């Protein structure tokens, strides 16, 4: 009897140890972002690109100082080139900021994946363990034919492969998190408060986006650059020359491009706010489903404790609750990542 208890204890320890082994240390999202940004080697590339753009801008300013202001090429060197290099420098800065936001998005994405893949793995493990039990019971049952035992064995093996695939996926997510956060830790995305996007005000977003959106900035600066270029060209070329006509056409086209970019950005923001509402609705719906499943499980638990239902019935309620938990995290992930994308191109933090 003692031996049996010891064996059970050892198995329990191994099993619980195994499960604990899958868990990472939870840290706040802000802390995780800080670590990921400090740890990211590719931000070094961004800094080097910024250095190169700064060198080009300094060089353009230097050339502007020493060049003549009374010739076509001299005016180009003095006014147009420094303006373009300044645009390039600012766009590099904006791109670097965007890359930092993308790293924050990666933290969110992988941390959500961690919880989802953990849920999938644990559920696949349960299915496999049930198949093992079914197989062992079938083997003990004298009425089960050899062929039926083979069928149980086939199901058991198929579920084992699936469980191993889920384990590998989970393990891959953990490895990627390790690379990102430099340790065995995960951002506690479960603590993120899901805010209602029905309160987002378009005008507020638009004000931020006009300063922040790099595509719009690029088009705006190009419009201004073409105006500078045209003001230089018209001093040195007659109206019927190809240089004059081409500069005028480029100026008009840049203006049209800018106006069109304003309109398309407006439409994108409106559409994305609407899409956020849909994604939020799905989160709310799954929260409702989750509370129903939780209630079902609580009732089943009490019925089981009083001997009214079997352990199998209770297990099925628990599985339904676990599946809903994973679904809820999945829906939250979709919403939060869409919100992050929205923040990345509008600069609007919600």
């Amino acid at each position, binding site marked *: 009897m003692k031996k049996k208890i010891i064996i059970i204890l050892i198995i329990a320890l191994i099993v619980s140890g195994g499960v604990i082994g899958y868990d990472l240390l939870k840290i706040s999202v802000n802390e995780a972002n800080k670590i990921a940004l400090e740890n990211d080697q590719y931000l*070094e*590339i961004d800094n*080097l*690109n910024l250095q*190169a753009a700064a*060198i080009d801008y300094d060089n353009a300013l230097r050339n502007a100082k020493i060049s003549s202001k009374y010739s076509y090429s001299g005016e180009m060197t003095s006014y147009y080139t420094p303006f373009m290099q300044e645009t390039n420098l600012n766009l590099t800065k904006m791109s670097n900021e965007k890359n930092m936001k993308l790293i924050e998005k990666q933290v969110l994405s992988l941390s959500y994946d961690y919880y989802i893949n953990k849920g999938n793995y644990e559920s696949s493990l349960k299915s496999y363990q049930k198949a093992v039990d079914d197989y062992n019971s079938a083997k003990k049952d004298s009425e089960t034919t050899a062929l039926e035992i*083979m069928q149980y064995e086939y199901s058991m093996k198929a579920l084992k492969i699936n469980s191993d*695939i889920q384990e590998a996926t989970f393990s*891959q997510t953990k490895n990627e998190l390790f690379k990102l956060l430099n340790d065995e830790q995960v951002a506690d995305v479960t603590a993120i408060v899901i805010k209602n996007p029905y309160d987002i005000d378009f005008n507020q977003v638009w004000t931020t986006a006009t300063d922040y959106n790099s595509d719009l900035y690029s088009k705006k600066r190009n419009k201004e650059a073409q105006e500078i270029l045209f003001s230089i060209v018209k001093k040195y070329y007659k109206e019927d020359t190809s240089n004059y006509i081409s500069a005028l056409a480029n100026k008009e086209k840049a203006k049209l491009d800018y106006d069109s970019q304003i309109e398309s950005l407006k439409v994108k923001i409106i559409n994305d706010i609407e899409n956020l509402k849909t994604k939020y609705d799905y989160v709310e719906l799954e929260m409702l489903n989750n509370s129903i499943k939780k209630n079902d499980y609580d009732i089943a638990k009490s019925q089981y404790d009083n001997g009214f239902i079997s352990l199998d019935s209770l297990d099925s309620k628990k599985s339904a609750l676990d599946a809903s938990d994973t679904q809820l995290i999945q829906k939250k992930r979709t919403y939060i990542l869409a919100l992050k994308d929205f923040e990345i191109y509008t600069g609007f933090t919600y």
Partner: protein
Amino acid sequence: MIKKTLSILLILVLLLLPVTVSASDYEASYNEYINNSEQLKSLYTTYQDLESSYADSVKELLNYSTGSSLSYYQAYAYINKVTGKIQLDRSLEASKENILRTKMDMTISFRSRYYNLYTLEKSMNDTYSNYLSQLETYNSNVALYKQGYINKSIVDLSDYNKKSAYVSYMSNKRNYENAIREFNLLIGKDYDNTDYKLNIDEKIKAVSPLDVYLESFLENSPTLKSYSNTIEIGEIKIDCLEAYNLDVTSYDAKLDYAKTNISIEITALRKKEYIETSKSDIENLYTQIEFAKRTIDNEAFAIEINKRLMEENRDFYLKGYIEKEEYNSYIEKYENSVKAYKEKIYSYNSMILNLEKTACMYMKGEL
């Protein structure tokens, strides 16, 4: 009577509709696809042009005088001479790599299209069998109705099921024929050619240890070579500028020196990033292949189970314990498991090809 005659006629027409088949021609179609590719022909021409002009270009570079003084222009002439040879060699090698990579891409794409044809043909045949079965049910219901055993609504329902099965069959048939026409265009055959016997029966490909793929990637990757090349050229430039001390004497050279150093650093970081990402891709593909192999082994086990079930039920059928239809269902189950096994092997072999592509193993191939 008229309805029955029409049904028989319809069956005869439908029997003639499916494409005529000849011997399996995966190899023949593949060879036509490769041999008729304009893209490959153009890549070969580029390579041959580069190869034939290579000796003259090298000679021209070597004859290029760089002088002996330490002037700005002579320093750059020297840089251009040395790096020019490296770039020339790289262009020739890259042109060869381009052909080999394109061939590999085409092989993978061809396999995927061929498999698509196979599955479309299978869907067409399955829906056709279903149509025949619905037609049989309908005809039998019509006979029963005439004898007064069933009511009209049952006949109407089976008429609807028969028509629905026919629409589904025609939809699948058109999908298959459309895909066949696109396939013909791809391999350079007449678009209305339907002379195919689609066969995906293959031997399982052997997989090497993971290290073989990782080493092949490090040794053969054209992108890695290109990064190394850029770094090498940048370093030569830096050495040269330092030797001529141009970073102090000329503003432009000083600027070039600073930007080249940044470019080397950026390229080195990108190279590191590329190695890490590609290694991880190779490892993930390898893991997927291992799982696919285990699934195939389990499917072989499923075939064994279905074979035994079929044999067991054949005995039951011969002894009169079960109906012919029930026995047929076991035969069908067995045949389906064999088909599923072959499909999994074909997909598995494609996965290995993808792994070989990621590991740049095609670089060892012949032009």
